């Protein structure tokens, strides 16, 4: 037996496998294995949480397992867009109070959860995080295992502190080279989704590596991890490095454990990308996998531009948008909507003078909300309208009417498109090298 256990102990594992193994009673886990994992952070928002509370109450459960591990953020339809939304928020607010959940983020201190949790240092490397939202995979940027779940899973996790999970196979994506000006993390992930398809990483962990990844800021990594679900992935993961540690300094609320993939860890697929020749990318309707370079999109006129969301609503995104919009105006007939993802981001954008740039460009600046990204409020599209948006999905009816269209782009392309009134490369409004 001892030789067997030694062999198992020395079995090479990926970061994802190591984190999951550390959250079970086993030392080793294998892809495909069903495990009961201990959960460190559980996130719920105003759409997923009321149903979860309903499920808990249905079986007579009274108390959550640990109120400190639960984070509730009303971010989708807030400030409440109608009575139903207000009722949902009220259910959540009262539940938080009743259960002693202190990480309840009310208007005035909230943000879009996937931007807020990293910013607040609530997720640390090595965590297992589940969130009642598909884009909960965002936290993988910080070296945690993070995945999206539905309301019943959310109820089960809040109640028991554990959740059944299937250990995913891992796919490794190695990105090399220095990207050109205006080519951002958004373009890298869109390019990858375009390459592997919207189910190209179905049920898998997408592990990112390579010098192009090492050069990415935490903001860029969050953007990439955010969209792995658009390739069907269970989680996306970035190894912890100096960039991660610098981001966590003065921010992380807990101590953390760093896991690295073993050099001989097993991957179902390893893909390499040279990012040097990439252009900014555009995902055409109605799929995040329908990706073309921006040069093939210059004849597409637009009615609205949205800059924000859990994908691209952080301060770095707003700075890039402001760089393009500085001294310029949205074209006649284009509605420019800018949504800082958190209250802190909003405040920082104000201090840096970015809000003035946006307002002078005839843009409007909203309080943090998921709003238009889900076709909720704050910029829903009418029949036949088109939008260039820095969000993450462009399914039929995603931003409003089933006959509206959404083109997914990076913040610089979104800003340039607002100025031109059609999808445009930033070089078309700012001369190169300036």
């Amino acid at each position: 037996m001892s030789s067997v256990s030694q062999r198992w102990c020395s079995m090479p594992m990926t970061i994802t496998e190591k984190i999951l193994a550390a959250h079970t009673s086993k030392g080793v886990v294998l892809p495909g294995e069903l495990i009961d994992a201990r959960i460190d952070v559980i996130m719920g928002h105003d759409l997923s949480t009321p149903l979860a509370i309903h499920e808990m109450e249905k079986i007579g459960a009274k108390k959550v397992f640990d109120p400190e591990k639960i984070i509730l953020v009303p971010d989708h339809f807030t400030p409440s867009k109608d009575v139903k939304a207000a009722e949902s928020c009220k259910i959540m607010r009262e539940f938080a109070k009743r259960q002693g959940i202190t990480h309840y983020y009310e208007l005035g201190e909230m943000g879009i959860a996937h931007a807020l949790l990293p910013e607040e240092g609530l997720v640390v490397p090595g965590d297992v995080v589940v969130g009642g939202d598909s884009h909960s995979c965002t936290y993988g940027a910080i070296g945690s295992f993070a995945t999206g779940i539905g309301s019943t899973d959310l109820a089960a996790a809040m109640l028991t502190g554990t959740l059944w999970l299937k250990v995913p196979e891992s796919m490794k994506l190695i990105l090399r080279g220095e990207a050109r000006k205006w080519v951002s993390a958004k373009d890298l992930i869109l390019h990858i989704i375009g390459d592997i398809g919207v189910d190209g990483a179905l049920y898998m962990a997408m592990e990112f590596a390579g010098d192009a990844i090492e050069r990415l800021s935490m903001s860029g990594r969050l953007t990439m991890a955010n969209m792995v679900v658009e390739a069907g992935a269970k989680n996306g993961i970035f190894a912890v490095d100096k960039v991660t540690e610098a981001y966590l300094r003065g921010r992380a609320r807990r101590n953390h454990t760093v896991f690295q993939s073993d050099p001989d860890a097993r991957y179902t697929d390893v893909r390499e990308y040279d990012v040097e020749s990439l252009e900014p990318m555009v995902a055409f309707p109605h799929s995040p996998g329908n990706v073309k370079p921006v040069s093939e999109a210059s004849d597409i006129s637009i009615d609205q531009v949205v800059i924000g969301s859990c994908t691209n609503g952080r301060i770095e995104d707003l700075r890039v948008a402001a760089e393009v919009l500085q001294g310029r105006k949205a074209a006649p007939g284009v509605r420019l909507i800018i949504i800082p993802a958190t209250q802190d981001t909003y405040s920082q954008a104000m201090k840096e003078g970015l809000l003035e740039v946006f307002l002078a460009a005839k843009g409007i600046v909203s309080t943090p909300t998921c709003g238009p990204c889900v076709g909720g409020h704050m910029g829903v599209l009418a029949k036949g309208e088109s939008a260039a948006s820095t969000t993450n999905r462009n399914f039929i009816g995603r931003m409003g009417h089933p006959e509206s269209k959404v083109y997914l782009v990076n913040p610089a392309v979104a800003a340039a498109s607002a100025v031109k009134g059609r999808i445009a490369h930033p070089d078309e409004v700012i001369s190169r090298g300036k």
Partner: protein
Amino acid sequence: MILRGKVWKFGNDVDTDVIIPVQHTIGTDLEEFGKHCMEGLDPHFAGKVIPGDIMVAGTNFGCGSSREPAPLAIKASGISCVIAKSFARIFYRNAFNIGLPLIDSADAWGGVEEGDEIEVNLDSGEIRVVSTAAVFKANPIPPFMQQLISDGGLMNHIKRKLNL
């Protein structure tokens, strides 16, 4: 368990935004979710379903948002199970968690037509077209998922485990 119903056919990458647009996902009223089932593709779909009917779709069914009203809407509309070439993972969990069976079959999609009467044997994974007696194999439902279905979903499974 054997399910029998008429086929409603869909393509690849049916996302949860078309299964139930977000404005109808607020709250906990299952009947209301059901009225908007597949509204993004066919606003009148829910009214046409006869209880027991079966959806047959291509790859990556249920991709996109984690919204649980998606499988809840399908179940509440009267659909008894969904057969697809593959399912998006959050949708897959959500469906079994709420007690909507999903069947994974590479062959059924190409072998059935919309409106066909079919029988699905959840235990053996066999799909039979009633009029032609053609049979298609599906991957058997994993034992843990079968347990969830027989317990009546994840919360009842937990209730049993915790002796609530």
